[in-house]
């Protein structure tokens, strides 16, 4: 009985860590611009697809990973330069719509550049399951936990301990004031897209051995990542991680103890319930509006 519970928990943690990693990317761009970047899932897809196809073509894994990360960052920068920046005076909502358009464009591009097949990547530390008290966990899940944990530490350090990170936060709070004290607002936005694309690529690379990837993989990861980010409080890294884990574990426990037919509904019910009582998410700062 306990073994079954533990297995459900591991299942939930595996999915949850994947959602959390996807959710983290939303936090950075939101922090810098209050824009929700719906092309975040596509950064994840690009990271996974680029690595998987290069590895399949014979590139050594570390080289493929480095190139995929660079490619994804380049796409992030290009997206900001050619789609977001020309519309910088537009509403936040308009920019969000632009990111949706960009996500469709990137999916189409991936379809042309690569193909419509699914691609796999070998697991980093083998495929021998680790047995714990009668339940099993794949070593790759540990990689996902580790990378998610590392990302949150690095992000915390970046936003709280570096001048550039603080400049980003300042820009998100008040763009004009930030500009007046000498922060290069344009640079901040550019950097935020590069960073979140990089983070997305890292996420895509570590989850591909578990979930596989294809040109459409970004849709699900983006959606679940967005749910995780909203549940945890948009713009809060810890929140995205906790949110992702809650969604993943809720799904697994629901399919284990209730019915797998309702697991998605149950996860969304939890999100609705939390947002009903805490509209800015679990870790979000309460917004203050001056009337």
């Amino acid at each position: 009985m306990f073994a079954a519970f533990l297995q459900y928990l591991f299942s939930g943690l595996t999915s949850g860590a994947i959602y959390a990693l996807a959710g983290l990317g939303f936090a950075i761009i939101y922090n810098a611009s209050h824009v929700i970047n719906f092309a975040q899932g596509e950064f994840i897809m690009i990271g996974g697809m680029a690595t998987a196809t290069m590895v399949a073509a014979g590139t050594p894994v570390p080289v493929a990973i480095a190139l995929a990360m660079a490619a994804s960052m380049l796409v992030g920068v290009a997206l900001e330069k050619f789609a977001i920046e020309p519309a910088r005076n537009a509403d936040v909502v308009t920019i969000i719509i632009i990111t949706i358009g960009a996500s469709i464009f990137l999916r189409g591009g991936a379809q042309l550049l690569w193909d419509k097949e699914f691609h796999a990547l070998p697991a980093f530390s083998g495929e021998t399951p680790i047995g714990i008290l009668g339940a099993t966990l794949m070593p790759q899940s540990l990689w996902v936990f580790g990378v998610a944990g590392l990302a949150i530490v690095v992000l915390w350090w970046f936003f709280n301990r570096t001048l550039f990170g603080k400049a980003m936060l300042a820009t998100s709070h008040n763009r004009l004031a930030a500009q007046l004290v000498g922060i290069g607002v344009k640079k901040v936005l550019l950097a935020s897209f590069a960073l979140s694309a990089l983070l997305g690529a890292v996420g895509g690379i570590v989850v591909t051995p578990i979930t596989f990837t294809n040109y459409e993989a970004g849709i699900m990861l983006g959606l679940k990542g967005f749910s995780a980010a909203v549940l945890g409080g948009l713009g809060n890294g810890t929140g995205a991680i906790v949110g992702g884990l809650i969604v993943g574990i809720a799904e697994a426990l629901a399919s284990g103890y209730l019915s797998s037919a309702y697991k998605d509904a149950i996860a969304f019910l939890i999100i609705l319930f939390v947002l009903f009582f805490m509209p800015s998410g679990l870790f979000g700062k309460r917004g203050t509006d001056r009337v």
Partner: protein
Amino acid sequence: MHNLVKWGTAAVVAVGLCGLAGHARAADPIRIGSTLSVTGPASFLGEPEKKTLEMYVERINKEGGVLGRKIELVVYDDGGAGDKASTFTKRLIESDKVDILIGGSTTAATMAAAPLAERAEVPFISLAGAVVVVEPVKKWIFKTPHTDRMAAEKVFSDMKKRGITKIGLISEDAGFGKSGHDQSLAVVKNYGIEIVADEVYSPKDPDVTAQLTKIKNAGGVQAVFNFGFGQGPAIVTKNFKQLGMAVPLYQSHGVASKDYIRLAGDAAEGVRLPAAGIVVPEQLAATDPQKLVVTAFKKDYEAAFKSDVSTFAGHAYDALQIVLAAIKRAGAVDKAKIRDEIEKTSGYVGTGGLVSMSASDHMGLSPSAFHMLEIRKGEWALID
């Protein structure tokens, strides 16, 4: 003034178009219309289907066409969506004035197009899998792919042979998996098998160990049957191995492609699934009537497109061959006569199996169309 110019242009264009239409009628090709899911989630169906139709139509035209007339193929991409399929079918019937419809890659697209074909009385050979396409029988609708019920029956009969009586079913909670799940429940009793655990997963779930653990603990499960396509079955297979489940795993015909073995890797070892002969042409017995057809088709397709042939490409090939044979027998491009001749198709050896249609069976495949395969050392092995 501006308006005058616009109307003037419109009139000229309209006159020109009428002239063109008149001209086209004089040349009079046989028109085959097709709405396929060339892009979108079902593109793995529509893309090979489109390539196959185009390749063979071109070849037939080079050889002089049918009844001395060329064939003109009109293809639209419905992206797998029913509403688009319906719009395009309307266009095919009303403005392209096609004589025959081949297409509807997904069941949704086919079911949206079917009433239009029925009303306009155009013969329509569907490329969709589900039983609902031909059951109940619709006068003008036929199909070439195997049904999910046939796949379930093949799997259950193999289980019965192995003395398995209690199984766990895990299916994808969407289109193909859902229909397969329902058909499995409908026929499982005929084989004395009981489904003791019935679980589902979403098409893009990253992990299904929770569902599999529940099946494992259901008590007395002697085999697990998974109905789905895409990456889902590969994840099920990997998780199945992760949990160290010692019972046999069965998959549906939805994963009968090399991609599945490639994705699932070692975990796919020993998995059994039903598949058409086209998956293993070289392993078919020399006496198998299908051997020649599938070997030739595989060679043609792979030489032309440099990619592995799939069962889906075969469905389009079969549909085209059945239609061409019917036109030849009818001796005229008359929709009603062609329909009657399609229904009289008998003993056609296709990539999907032997096809003999009748007034009550608009698919015509016998259960022997499926073979049972097992994955051994990363390759298909024909076991039945």
